[in-house]
């Protein structure tokens, strides 16, 4: 009871401090946040990869539903810091294309019985690449913090849509089969992105 009361009272400073945190950006513009929110949505490679992460997390089930998206987003923030610092990371676009291909394959093969750790590690690695590209492509004169906040929220939304798709697919066998075929289509798109990236780097 005392613990619960303490938790309830600890909420009060949060109520007071939340706007104060935002006040740190006083004088800035909301353009950074908007740019960050829109960045993952309007790149088809980012969009497919991030929705696929949500789908795969549901297919693996259990705690993976939150663990895998969290691994992606966490690694993405680390990658974004590198991108914002303009650290050179060659072939990151190739890695993004490969992520679409691999995640599409993930949708085709992922199931509850398999070990989640190799997929989690791979997804975290791809998350860092996506974050790096988001960070490196920050538009000039926007707040990096707001821009990062924007694409983190946007990415989480795409993961959630993937989770909803994955969850709906568990309700009917034909939906589940359809989702596997969609995964195959995502794999093909990934291969196309990969070819495009190869021709771009060659």
């Amino acid at each position, binding site marked *: 009871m005392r613990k619960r009361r303490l938790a309830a009272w600890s909420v009060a400073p949060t*109520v007071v401090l939340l*706007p104060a945190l935002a006040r740190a950006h*006083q004088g800035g513009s909301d353009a950074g*946040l908007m740019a960050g929110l829109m960045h993952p949505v309007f790149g088809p490679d980012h969009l497919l990869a991030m929705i696929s992460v949500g789908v795969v997390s549901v297919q693996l*089930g259990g705690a993976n*539903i*939150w663990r895998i998206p969290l691994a992606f987003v966490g690694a993405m923030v680390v990658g974004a810091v590198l991108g914002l610092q303009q650290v050179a990371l060659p072939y990151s676009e190739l890695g993004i294309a490969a992520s679409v291909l691999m995640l599409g394959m993930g949708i085709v093969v992922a199931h509850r019985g398999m070990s989640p750790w190799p997929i989690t590690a791979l997804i975290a690695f791809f998350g860092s690449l996506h974050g790096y590209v988001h960070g490196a492509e920050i538009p000039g004169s926007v707040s990096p913090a707001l821009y990062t906040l924007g694409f983190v929220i946007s990415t989480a939304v795409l993961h959630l849509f993937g*989770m909803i798709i994955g969850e709906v697919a568990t309700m009917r066998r034909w939906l589940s089969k359809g989702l596997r075929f969609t995964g195959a289509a995502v794999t093909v798109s990934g291969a196309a992105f990969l070819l495009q990236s190869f021709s771009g780097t060659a």
Partner: protein
Amino acid sequence: MNRNKLGKFILSFVLVAGAIVSTAVDWNTTHLFNPAWHPHARFHDALFLLFLDATTLVMLWLLWRRSAEPAVGITAVALYSAAVWTPFLYIEALIPGTSLLASADVPVLRIAGMVLAPNLLIAIVMLVLTIAGYWLGRDFGTDA
């Protein structure tokens, strides 16, 4: 994680992301500290943000508290979220002289000739997530 928890997880995200995005978008010179705004308009924006942040915390408590009627919390949060985000769809039509855009140079999306303000797009996404979260959250019997 069961289906109900996934629904609650989605609704929690809608609550928290909504409060953070709204506060971050408004707490700057385009809105709350805009010198062109009347002080009382700024007062109302601050009032809205503080109210939104506080009610978000109340709704999170309502959603996750132990209760003999968990469906009540899920329904209340879904209705609260709908109440926050649906006005974006009709305020411009309801109150002449209002605008979804903070200034004329805010970039808008054009889809099939239709102009979509970014905040309208965010509201639509939040409403879709609210419906999905409510639908999944009301399911108390199936494993996800």
